[in-house]
């Protein structure tokens, strides 16, 4: 035992462990310490970089939750959804309306947001029984437009284009009204949902999802109930993205329909693809990439704003164009995403200098 190089599992229990080696556990603790300490140094570093670092982290966390959801659906079950932007909106509006009209605390509205979104997602996911691939993409795109329309035009419920003002999340008298406070709330949520995702993936539903993705006919033959698991996947996925929407509502405190467009759905898909479909880490890498990129784009565009005064007006457009371009580049040159790249880099260092 003493001189083994590599992982040699001697029992199934060992193989199924969440932390395969004590190294993994050590790195995770290190990461946790790092994340907990962000608010302490974030302010200073952020202002040095001319950005609000804590705010960025919170947004990354919210996107990670949503991206985990879509990754479960698209990466693990192989069902494409172009409606997750609107589903996030459903979550945000559910949380917002319950908080504003019925004055419910956030620890009630947030699960409610998840459940309502899960229900909506399951309704729009029912075509997945008959439809695959292309057809499903189109069906969920229709869902996106229909929900988007409802959010914009159902004034009595959503407040229409004027938006909905949401109070801060609060437990008793304690309000999450600063970036730092919300940061810790979001951190807890993101750890919780990453943990849940990891566990879904390695238990029965997760394996059923992967079986459906890889060859659904074979999966059905060996006893995976296709309808049940596909709808379940849609439900869980929408639950995640609904929670993300609820968190978004409490963080931004103003919900308007403008945020939950087709563009957001595409961004979510791009997060999963850039990060790596079918890797739990993929959603995390993808969300970080998606939030970091506009920040990186901002620096050259600020420099250019001296030359082109209307740089800021076209920034949004430019961003979409660059995103579109990067998505294309990724798909052509790195179709497995950042998570796969991460694995290659890691195994390079692990095996160095004997990489054969």
């Amino acid at each position, binding site marked *: 035992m003493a001189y083994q190089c590599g992982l040699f599992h001697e029992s199934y229990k060992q193989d199924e462990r969440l932390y395969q080696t004590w190294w993994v556990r050590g790195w995770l603790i290190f990461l946790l310490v790092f994340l907990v300490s962000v608010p302490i140094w974030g302010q200073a570093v952020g202002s040095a970089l001319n950005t609000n670092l804590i705010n960025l982290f919170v947004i990354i966390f919210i996107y990670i939750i949503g991206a985990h959801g879509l990754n479960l659906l698209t990466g693990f079950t192989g069902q494409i959804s172009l409606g997750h932007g609107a589903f996030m909106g459903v979550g945000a509006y559910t949380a917002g309306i319950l908080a504003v009209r019925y004055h419910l605390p956030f620890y009630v509205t947030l699960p409610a947001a998840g459940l309502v979104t899960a229900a909506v997602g399951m309704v729009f996911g029912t075509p997945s029984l008959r439809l695959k*691939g292309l057809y499903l993409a189109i069906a969920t795109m229709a869902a996106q437009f229909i929900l988007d329309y409802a959010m914009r035009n159902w004034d009595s419920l959503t407040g229409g284009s004027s938006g909905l003002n949401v109070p801060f999340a609060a437990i008793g008298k304690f309000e999450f009204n600063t970036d730092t406070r919300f940061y810790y709330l979001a951190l807890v949520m993101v750890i919780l949902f990453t943990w849940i995702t990891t566990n879904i993936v390695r238990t029965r539903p997760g394996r059923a999802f992967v079986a459906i993705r890889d060859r659904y006919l074979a999966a059905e033959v060996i006893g995976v109930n296709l309808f049940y698991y596909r709808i379940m996947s849609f439900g869980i996925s929408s639950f995640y993205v609904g929670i993300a929407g609820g968190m978004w509502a409490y963080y931004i405190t103003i919900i308007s329909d403008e945020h939950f467009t087709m563009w957001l759905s595409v961004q979510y898909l791009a997060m999963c693809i850039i990060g790596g479909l079918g890797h739990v880490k993929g959603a995390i890498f993808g969300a970080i990439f998606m939030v970091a990129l506009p920040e990186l784009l901002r620096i050259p565009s600020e420099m250019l704003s001296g030359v082109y005064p209307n740089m800021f007006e076209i920034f949004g457009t430019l961003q979409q164009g660059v995103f579109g371009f990067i998505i294309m580049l990724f798909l052509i040159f790195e179709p497995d995403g950042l998570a796969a790249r991460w694995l290659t880099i890691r195994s390079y260092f692990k095996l160095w200098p004997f990489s054969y």
Partner: protein
Amino acid sequence: MPDAAVKFIQLFVTGLVTGSVYALVALGFVLIYKSTSIINFAQGEFVLVGAYICLFLVQAGIPFIPAFALTMGASVLLGLGVERGVLRPMIGEPIISVIMVTIGLAFFLKSTISLIWGTQIRVFPPIFSQEPIHFGQVIVSEVYIYTFIFAVLFLGIFAAFFKFSRIGIAMRAVANDQMTAQSMGIPVKIVFAVSWCIAAMVSGVGGILIGNINGINITLADFGLKVFPAVILGGLDSILGAIIGGLVVGVLENLMGGYLDQYFGGGVKEVAPFFVLLVILMIKPYGLFGIEEIERV
């Protein structure tokens, strides 16, 4: 004639005109799907590119007919470039990647265009007159009639092209069975490229026609999304289906918009086709003329 009937006919005729342009764009969409099995989410952006290039040329002082021909040339180049640069490397990748790459392309094209031309509405110098023509009590503007005629003309040209020309027959062969076609000596790569070129061309024509009616701005790209209900109704791989689907969706959205707007606070026209789409997917997923995929283990 009673007012209700006039309103109905009015809406129907307007819908038919819009629908004929949908049919044209849907034709391009189906063509790509048929020969390459790729769903092109950037179809609307092809419409946009065609419309803006033609506008640019016309504003530069080139008369309409040469400008139109040049736009067709530019569309061919666009189609070739996209096929070669973006889709060719994606052969053999999973469906989701291919879908995503066309979405990426869509956003890239759209933002490039709005960086060059801005987002405000631009109007074509009038080529067809807006003069209203009275058919009894129904009023139709002349430009609508020309649009319809042109759309039908182009549909006819392309339909004849598939039916009779050598490359058209090759395209149908590839759509039918790629491997057999290849073994019979049909250059599949050229067929792919031609499909993309024609798709870009018909979309360009659609863009110019619709731009003549409404003026163009960046939201014209949403026009491309309307082809989805049309092709789903007709069946993704049927050219006849695309034409009929386009017309039906155009008429339906106008009727639903005309009658239901008052109850839903406007904008029904934009969303109604997608309701139709979902309903069709539920009851007849392969559309009216599509080939049903039967899977056997």
